[in-house]
């Protein structure tokens, strides 16, 4: 009976704690997103081009100028303009793109799956290789493999991603011919499937178009490995430091004394405990890849959000630039907060 009440009150406490955290979480999310909108609003206002002149031309009579100015809402006080901008941004209305003439949101929905595909593959590659490398580096501290991981990380932090991408393209596509070049799919395959999810790899596989699927794999390989390398550099470094931390704990000694094999001690016990902070790291590296994709997509002609932003930039299409910036910023914030929440949920010590 006593036990039952105890657990019940404990459960009640946990629930209250969880609700409190969730409220806090939503409050932080809301203020940060509000801030993001404010920053993009501000950037939109410092553009030296007068939006009215951009529409009516510089020879328009004064009354036309005044009317258009009124229609655009530019005669209203700044705070009221921001309010209108905010309301529109919340409903996903970032205005129309000058370049494609579509609403910016429609464009973003169209291009986002390509970025998602690339960033997800990059993170998977980075985690699959980075975690074992980090564990090995921690276990064999000071050995050749530890040095190797260190150098790999240093290069990853120092090399310009656009240059490495170009060099990889030169080597693996132009010289060796191991992979397909820029783009997502050869033109010959692009009508062999119907886009459903917008993620070519999934669409072609689901529809049984194996030729198209392998072609897409060959196209995505290089940019995904490139992004994967950058996330690997970060993930392996962090894994190493978490594992060093865990391996110094007493439970590791206890497990060894119990006679568990070294393999079990490292991969089952220590890594399991290190995996909680690792989740945060992986989520962060995922968010970083969204940024890395801006330059990578430009090089590999990958029709994602990054290329959309840079194309719009080159055509002074501010609505599209700010919409894209806001979406990447929001994704960044949400990923950060989700990783934080996951950490709290998974690690009993933070309760």
């Amino acid at each position, binding site marked *: 009976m006593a036990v039952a009440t105890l657990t019940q009150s404990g459960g009640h406490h946990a629930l209250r704690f969880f609700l409190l955290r969730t409220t806090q979480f939503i409050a932080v999310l809301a203020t940060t997103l509000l801030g*993001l909108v404010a920053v993009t609003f501000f950037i939109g206002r410092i553009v030296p081009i007068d939006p009215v002149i951009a529409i009516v031309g510089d020879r328009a009579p004064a009354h036309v100028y005044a009317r258009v100015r009124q229609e655009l809402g530019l005669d209203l006080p700044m705070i009221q303009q921001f309010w209108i901008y905010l309301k529109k941004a919340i409903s996903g209305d970032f205005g129309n793109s000058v370049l494609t003439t579509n609403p910016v949101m429609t464009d973003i929905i169209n291009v986002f799956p390509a970025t998602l595909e690339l960033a997800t593959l990059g993170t998977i590659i980075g985690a699959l290789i980075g975690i074992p490398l980090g564990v090995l580096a921690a276990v064999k501290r000071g050995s050749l493999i530890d040095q190797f991981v260190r150098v790999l990380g240093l290069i990853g932090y120092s090399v310009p991603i656009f240059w490495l991408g170009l060099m990889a393209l*030169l080597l693996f596509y132009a010289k060796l011919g191991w992979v397909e070049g820029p783009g997502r799919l050869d033109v010959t395959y692009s009508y062999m499937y119907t886009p459903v999810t917008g993620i070519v790899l999934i669409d072609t596989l689901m529809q049984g178009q194996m030729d198209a699927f392998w072609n897409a794999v060959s196209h995505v390989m290089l940019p995904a490995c490139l992004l994967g390398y950058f996330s690997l550099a970060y993930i392996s470094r962090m894994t190493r430091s978490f594992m060093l931390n865990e391996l110094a704990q007493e439970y590791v000694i206890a497990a060894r004394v119990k006679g568990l094999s070294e393999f079990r001690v490292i991969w089952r016990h220590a890594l399991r405990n290190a995996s909680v902070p690792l989740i945060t790291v992986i989520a962060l590296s995922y968010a970083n890849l969204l940024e890395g994709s801006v330059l990578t997509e430009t090089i590999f002609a990958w029709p994602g959000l990054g290329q959309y932003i840079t194309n719009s930039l080159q055509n002074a299409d501010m609505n599209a630039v700010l919409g894209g910036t806001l979406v990447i910023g929001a994704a960044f914030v949400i990923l950060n907060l989700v990783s934080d929440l996951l950490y709290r949920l998974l690690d009993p010590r933070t309760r």
Partner: protein
Amino acid sequence: MTGAAPLVQPTGLRAWLLSPEPASRWQARLGRLYLGWRTFTKNPLAVFGLGIVLLLLLVALFAGFLAPYSPVAGGDLRTLRLLPPSAEHWFGTDDQARDIYSRVIYGSRITLWVVLLVSVIATPIGLLVGTVAGYVGGWVDTVLMRLTDIFLAFPRLVLALAFVAALGPGIENAIIAIAITSWPPYARIARAETLMIRNSDFIAAVKLQGASTPRIIMGHVVPLCISSLIVRVTLDMAGIILTAAGLGFLGLGAQPPMPEWGAMVATGRNYLIDQWWVAAMPGLAIFVVSLGFNLLGDGLRDVLDPKAAK
């Protein structure tokens, strides 16, 4: 470092530097500097990084002597265009028949200029925001830190892109944009340091002497935050260089014909398959320089901030 008695008693200048009873504040400072230098030189990679950074400084300073050709004026377009690396043109020539080696040499000035200006603009902003937030506390702290978080929430390159898009392309605007995106982590660090210092006895003593809040912040809190900030800024310099190069690559940084490394890689992109050197050489320069700053930053961290090094 202290404690253990050296086997051989140091003599001369070293003895003076390592003296356990320095006769002046000046001697004590120099002694500490010397100890730091000894820790620093124990890390060969850090020394290597310092070497690269010094080389960058020298190259930028003596670019006029080192570069055999003009960085902006091209040669004969009929015969000197897109030549491969040779004894005459070490890194080859580009599409305007310009010597790439000379351009890379002069480009070091732009890179150094960007790094210097960004740190000169961003560090004081971060320092001020962080120390004020940490020392004053209360709602000032909340407002300033929320603001910092908002700027931290944007990925750096994307925010810089948006700013440059609004301000217009050009090296000055790129520097402003990078500075705007660089200060938030500095503010975070300065605040964390300030929170540790705020309740110390010596601050209480200064307060009892009647010092005003600005005086305490500027005279007593800021100097103590600087060493961890220097480490962070040095570690950040590689990131600043990479962001500037990225902006240049996208055509938003330095405008032609300025020999900016990122923009040079962008030119080389058009000739990638057959004239690889046009893109490869300036990119290599970016890589080496940011590697140097990363190594130097790592070494400085070991010296100035031993806690974080682990």
